[in-house]
């Protein structure tokens, strides 16, 4: 089988599982990353705590690509400001643009996201925009120079699964960039399903962070994502609209 490489922002990855690092103890990060087989991990930028509190950077295994997000930004200007700070923290030029005005459902603001993507690609960032799965916005993001699109499956942190399935499918069919399904994926089976549909990768955080056993769930997701990818590459078997079709020969030798 030929090697299946995931290209993102000019870098090669083998893993198609992007792991979030929020909502759980930093001491579990290493085990989660290892069990997930993840090569990319998302981080947030916040006001620093003084007095030598455990820094998350001490817990992330070496060689993992950091994907800072702009969470907390309410418009493009704030997202740009957070992105610049994240780059100044010295961990590369990947940025996940996240802009939310709505604090109840935490839905991304597509318009501001396009604006931010445009500004940030001009500053040399590899821009991965979190978005509501809308084809027109996705096309605008392509034009803005984004490196991928990251449509939500359901509201962030909800674990509700593929509420936007049909619209994600449209993006997969129509957009040349990698489609990374982000937010709302609650179970390995849902991660598997989007990978079968042809998503390039899956990002998950809450599904892992709120699981009974975090490293074990990371491992379950890894397997599901790999299985879904392999199924996509192999081409799913066809669906028969009605009736059945035997897969064993029906030669009725007992009656001959």
């Amino acid at each position, binding site marked *: 089988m030929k090697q299946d490489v995931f290209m993102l922002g000019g870098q090669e990855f083998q893993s198609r599982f992007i792991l979030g*690092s929020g909502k759980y103890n930093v001491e579990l990060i290493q085990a989660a990353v290892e069990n997930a087989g993840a090569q990319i991990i*998302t*981080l947030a930028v916040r006001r*620093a705590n003084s007095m030598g509190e455990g820094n*998350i950077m001490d817990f992330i295994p070496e060689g993992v690509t950091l994907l800072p997000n702009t*969470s907390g930004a309410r418009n493009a200007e704030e997202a740009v400001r957070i992105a610049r700070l*994240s780059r*100044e*923290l010295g961990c590369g030029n990947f940025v996940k643009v996240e802009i939310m005005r709505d604090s109840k459902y935490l839905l991304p603001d597509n318009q501001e996201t396009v604006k931010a993507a445009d500004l940030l690609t001009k500053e040399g960032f590899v821009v991965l925009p979190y978005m509501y799965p809308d084809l027109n916005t996705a096309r605008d993001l392509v034009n803005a120079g984004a490196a991928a699109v990251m449509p939500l499956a359901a509201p962030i942190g909800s674990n509700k699964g593929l509420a936007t399935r049909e619209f994600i499918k449209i993006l997969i069919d129509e957009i040349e960039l990698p489609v990374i399904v982000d937010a709302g994926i609650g179970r390995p089976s849902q991660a598997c399903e989007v990978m079968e549909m042809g998503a390039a990768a899956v990002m998950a*955080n809450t599904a892992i962070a709120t699981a009974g056993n975090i490293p074990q769930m990371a491992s379950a997701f890894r397997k599901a994502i790999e299985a879904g990818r392999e199924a996509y590459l192999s081409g799913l078997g066809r669906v028969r609209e009605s009736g059945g079709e035997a897969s064993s020969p029906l030669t009725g030798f007992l009656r001959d």
Partner: protein
Amino acid sequence: MKINGVQKEYSEGLTVSEMLIKEGFQKERVAVELNEEIVPKDDYETIVLRAADVVEVVSFMGGGSK
């Protein structure tokens, strides 16, 4: 000056680098914004803070979204 939203009474003439030490920040783990402009790490020793300055000191923390 204001550091991460808190008013601090430091005498004028403090460099960014001195402020980080006094406040207990790990220099290599933070990024600094002075009046909404990023301060490059190379300038920490030379840039002097004024009473009216607004300083933000940020670092990475766990986050998926929001």
